[in-house]
């Protein structure tokens, strides 16, 4: 990621406990089947949440985890994140040996309290208490308890007791206690047993439980969300949050509350903003043109700085501050842009999105405040919706890139709120096409001119090059390849006029000793730049194959070889067609010129687990052909 665009501060979720029951934590009592592939076993986890009132939620958390070997050490560390709206109390714990006997007591004094602010953030309300046990004899067990008090009920810890890479789950329990007259929104997914209900004097408790889940293997190229994972989410309909009250049953309710209480009050325009918009409006009578002009103005004027101030990190900086200071985080920049559009009477939506290369949707069936980590802006135009990413100073209006493409966002304005999907980039859009004319000298040095055009998500990934010094461009480009490249001259050109912007990079390059003379032979791998990496074999694949985004790579190159060599034999042309993509490559010799052509299309999609092996086979055939060498012989 070339931009730090994350912004909504994710509140630490898991929390709280019961009194430490003297249980049998001997390693011998772990069911045998849980030891397979496990470096750690979650022996017991218990998260008991008690909502006493909308402004008082207490979470008691208890956890016991056995670390079987050093690879599991990471699961022994305790990190308790908190902020100004919470307090953590009653931290206590114990470390046990393999037979379950206590070897060390842990108290809050053993914890280090530190700032948890990202090092790129100017301000965040975020701290962490942490403890890392030092045990040299495996296996050992660490158990601990703590209590977290929170003065809000908008964000409630979810339950996700799923086994992780190298960690099995022996037992996990989650309960939610609430006053009798409370209305709740509950989502329970894949729970093996129904919830248990119990009623107290004035309260009711719901409990979920799960036992004996085996550790799972990390499988590459699997879907971002495992459809089988167990998950419970609970929120009260009437909530309290940083001195504000609210009620919601769906995205529309929550969005209107958020927008009108947190965002709208920060959008008062200043006189200078009004006059800027007036001037740009008079210069751009066309609505779409005006949006572009305003967007460019905003990009030029501002830069992304993370400042997570106000209402749990959910409230943007005032638009007037952004206007004066020229910086803000994603919320602030979107809110500022929206204010400019409001002045021009162009309606738009403030959209919460889970950003990142992995496409994650907002949960259409369950509204909650803690989904999403980024904000973008959507503008409904006559024909379609124009999307604005406000933290990137380089991209043209309407371009999102692979940070937020093809996923459900939560769009809001003062009147309405709903889920809205961002556009996808079809495989054919994400393209790099390269041409090159090279000369090989007698020492094997290869030099020449090459031109590459990037579009779609590839455009986005390379656009940052236009914002750095030429000497840095040269280093970054050379750093992208696993061979030695000296870029001697470089020119970058943007073509942003159409809906499909592209970037052209023209370079004069030298590849020192790229080709290898050896005895009477000269070796050359004509595919210089486009090498695929082969995913690892995963025998007994469990999860589906997920190919996130498709792309096209097209290369044509010609090489002038030294006069005293001739090609004895050229590799055969290849044409592969599969469900996962296609690959063509060919070689031709005319005089002292070798011509090479390669086209690789990688499709996107979700395929059954059995497809994985086929995909690996396809990719390894591509990789093999990519590394084909031409061996020239002395005449």
């Amino acid at each position, binding site marked *: 990621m070339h931009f730090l665009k994350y912004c909504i501060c994710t509140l630490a979720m898991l929390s709280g406990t019961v009194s430490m029951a003297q249980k049998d934590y001997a390693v011998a009592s772990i069911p045998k089947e849980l030891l397979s592939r496990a470096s750690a076993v979650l022996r017991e986890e218990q998260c008991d949440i008690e909502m006493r009132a909308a402004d008082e939620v207490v979470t008691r958390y208890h956890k016991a985890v056995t670390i079987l070997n050093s690879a599991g050490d990471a699961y022994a560390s305790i990190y308790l994140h908190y902020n100004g709206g919470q307090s953590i109390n009653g931290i206590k714990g114990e470390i046990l040996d393999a037979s379950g006997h206590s070897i060390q007591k842990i108290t809050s004094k053993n914890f280090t*309290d530190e700032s948890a602010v990202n090092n790129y953030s100017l301000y965040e309300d975020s701290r962490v208490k942490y403890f890392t046990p030092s045990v*040299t004899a495996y296996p050992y067990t660490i158990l601990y308890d703590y209590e977290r008090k929170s003065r809000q009920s908008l964000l409630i810890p979810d339950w996700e007791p799923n086994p992780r890479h190298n960690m099995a789950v022996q037992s996990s329990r989650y309960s939610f206690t609430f006053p009798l007259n409370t209305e709740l929104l509950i989502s329970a997914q894949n729970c093996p047993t129904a919830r248990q209900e119990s009623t107290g004097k004035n309260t009711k408790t719901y409990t979920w439980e799960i036992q004996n889940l085996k*550790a799972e293997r990390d499988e590459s190229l699997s879907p971002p969300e495992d459809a089988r994972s167990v998950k419970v989410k609970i929120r009260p309909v009437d909530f309290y949050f940083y001195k504000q009250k609210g009620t919601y049953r769906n995205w529309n309710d929550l969005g209107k509350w958020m927008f009108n209480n947190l965002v709208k009050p920060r959008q008062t325009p200043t006189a200078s903003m009004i006059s800027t918009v007036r001037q740009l409006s008079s210069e751009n009578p066309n609505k779409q043109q005006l949006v572009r002009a305003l967007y460019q103005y905003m990009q030029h004027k501002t830069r992304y700085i993370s400042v997570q101030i106000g209402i749990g990190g959910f409230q943007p900086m005032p638009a007037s501050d952004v206007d004066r200071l020229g910086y803000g985080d994603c919320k602030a920049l979107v809110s500022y842009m929206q204010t400019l559009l409001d002045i021009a009477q162009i309606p738009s939506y403030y959209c919460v999105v889970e950003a990142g290369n992995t496409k994650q949707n907002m949960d259409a069936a369950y509204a909650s405040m803690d989904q999403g980590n980024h904000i973008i802006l959507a503008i409904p135009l006559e024909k379609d919706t124009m999307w604005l990413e406000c933290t990137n100073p380089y991209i043209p209006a309407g371009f999102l890139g692979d940070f937020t493409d093809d996923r459900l966002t939560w769009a809001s304005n003062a009147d309405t709120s709903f889920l809205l999907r961002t556009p996808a980039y079809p495989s054919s859009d994400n393209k790099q096409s390269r041409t090159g004319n090279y000369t090989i000298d007698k020492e094997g040095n290869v030099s020449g001119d090459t031109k590459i055009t990037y579009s779609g998500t590839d455009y986005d990934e390379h656009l940052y090059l236009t914002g750095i010094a030429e000497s*840095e461009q040269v280093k970054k480009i*050379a750093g992208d390849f696993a061979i030695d490249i000296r870029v001697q001259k470089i020119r970058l050109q943007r073509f942003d006029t159409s809906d499909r912007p592209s970037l052209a990079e023209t370079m004069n390059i030298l590849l020192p000793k790229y080709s290898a003379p*050896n005895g009477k032979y000269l070796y050359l791998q004509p595919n210089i730049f486009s090498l695929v990496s082969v995913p*690892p*074999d995963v025998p007994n694949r469990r999860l589906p194959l997920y190919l996130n985004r498709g792309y096209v790579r097209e290369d044509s190159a010609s090489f002038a070889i030294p006069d005293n060599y001739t090609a004895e034999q050229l590799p055969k042309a290849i044409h592969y067609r599969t469900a996962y993509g296609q690959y063509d490559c060919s070689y031709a010799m005319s005089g002292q010129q070798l011509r090479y052509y390669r086209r690789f299309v990688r499709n996107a999609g979700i395929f059954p687990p059995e497809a994985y092996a086929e995909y690996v086979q396809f990719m390894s055939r591509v990789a093999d052909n990519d590394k084909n060498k031409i061996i020239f012989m002395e005449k």
Partner: protein
Amino acid sequence: MLSAHVQAQDFEFGQLATDDQLAHKNQVDSVSNAIVLNEYGRAEFYLDDQRGQLNIQYYHHVRIKVFNKDGSRAANIQLPAYKGENSSDFISDIKGMTINFQNGNRMETPLERKNIYEENYSKYLTLTKFTLPNIQDGSIIEYSYRVLIPRIFNFHTWEFQDRIPKVHSQFEAIIPGAYNYNVSLRGPYKITDVKSSLVKEGFSLGGWRMDCSDMLYTMNNVPAFVEEDYMTAPSNFLSAIYFELSDVYTREGAHRGYTQKWKDVDDLLLSDKNFGGQLKRKDAFKDILPAILAGKSEERSKAAAIYEYVRKQIKWNDHSGMYSTGNIEDALKKHSGNDADINLALVAGLSAAGIKSHAVILSTRNNGIPNKLFPVISDFNYVVALAEIEGKQYWLDATEPLMAFGQLPMRCLNDSGRVMEPKKTSYWAAIDPRQKRATHYYLSGELLPSGTLKGEMKISNAGYAAFAKRSEIASFASPEEYVETLMGRLPRTRMIHYSITGMDSTDEDLVETYEVEIPLFDSLHFSRLYFNPFMVGKITKNPFSLSERNYPVDFGMPHEEAITIQVNMPKEFALDSKPQDIRMVLPDRNAGFRSTFKLEDGTLQGSYNMFFNQAIYSPDDYLNLKELYNRVIQLEKTDVIFKKS
């Protein structure tokens, strides 16, 4: 604050020089998204009358031009303030401004007080953070601040060089006559100009008015510092000026040496309860020693048993320091400690067993190289043990559970350590890892008529390579899963059987043996066969890419990589071509590369060896090393070509 009798060398805040606006990005070097146009720093003594405490009053003022969006990072400022037990650094008078030019009109945007944030980073550190407003391409930003620092020993370090280039950097040091500092300049660049003058009665201490020396150091056109692989702490090489308090005179003319003799430092350390005090705690081992040494008669095996005991008992808490955090009995009981807890316990244990050993203080690689001219105790941040066993010296550090006896972690491989031998003056000892990082690949087998290569691939990892491999394997839940992942990366290779030895005994080489079948060819019905023998451990990219390098190449330890191949070929194949035989050595023969291949009695025999006998190479060797890698990479592209006879 100080009275105004010091001539102000500072440049006027916000008053741009004509050159400032014209500054362009290639002014000093070619690497620049932003450039420091002018920078002035001043450090002077300040007496806190109420506390009777001497402080350094530091003032810093910078003007930077930002050329593009990437360069705007220079506008994000973080000022650290260290918190002490009695007094802390105090930052004040932060002033900042951005100057933009719009249609030739100058526009100023000031830094607002309320946009300066203080972050309580940890028990020891507060960060003051701010960013300058309204940054455009071509903005000129300027800021200044003061820090009051309650420590005078290092006066104030000044870095002339930074990650962005500087046009003009100036530092003024105003030092009262009674305080003598050793001043040293590091880095490749020369000071452009030094001016010295005297400030009459410039500092007053309890009514004693003393003259001050006023030194003004200037460096112009300082290129950006560029980091590359295989370097130690940037502070060793950055152009900067350092101060160490050497002596102080009293009003009566008495003199107190701060830069002590090593002998005094030795006495101090050896009597410190968190250093020498722990070395004497042999009692901690009294009861357990018989059990540890049971059945051991040789000194080497006794030492190894104690080493093993200490590292099993105390887990390193990732903290470095020269002093123990408590006493070693506690550390042994709590199973946790810093390097000093662990290695002072080790020395105590070895001594209890009658094995001659001493504590050695050193500075870790990222902490810089310690000053050799005079003792600077603050330069050291780590302690290890040096034992003499059966006439041989062993460097020992029990912080790493997977390290071999006698091996020091990479972080310790930094020039020299000071051996603290009781009743003797301490002495320098070059930290010599003795062990290499050596990997040897063996491939032996037979090319079957089907085109499959059937045979054995053995990877022998010695010294530091064994440590690295052991650590890698230990990061998996089991060796099976390591092998599974390894094979996942070699999709066409079928593994029949594997074995890994040396995982548990850290003194042995870590040897992986894989019985494999690799389908190299679809069949052997070709008139020519092209076989690339560099199947594993191939280097594709030269780690060195600069056209020159001003600092040494520091690999940490000598290293070598070798390949030995023996493959029986079907009879009908004869050799047509092979990778050239190469013997290439650096002028002093301390690094090189050899490679030979031949077909003898139907067996392809190959050997390849790249070696670096030194841990450190001087900048003069840089281009030779770079060329060596180029040749290796080029050779690895060539094949053994067989033809049917």
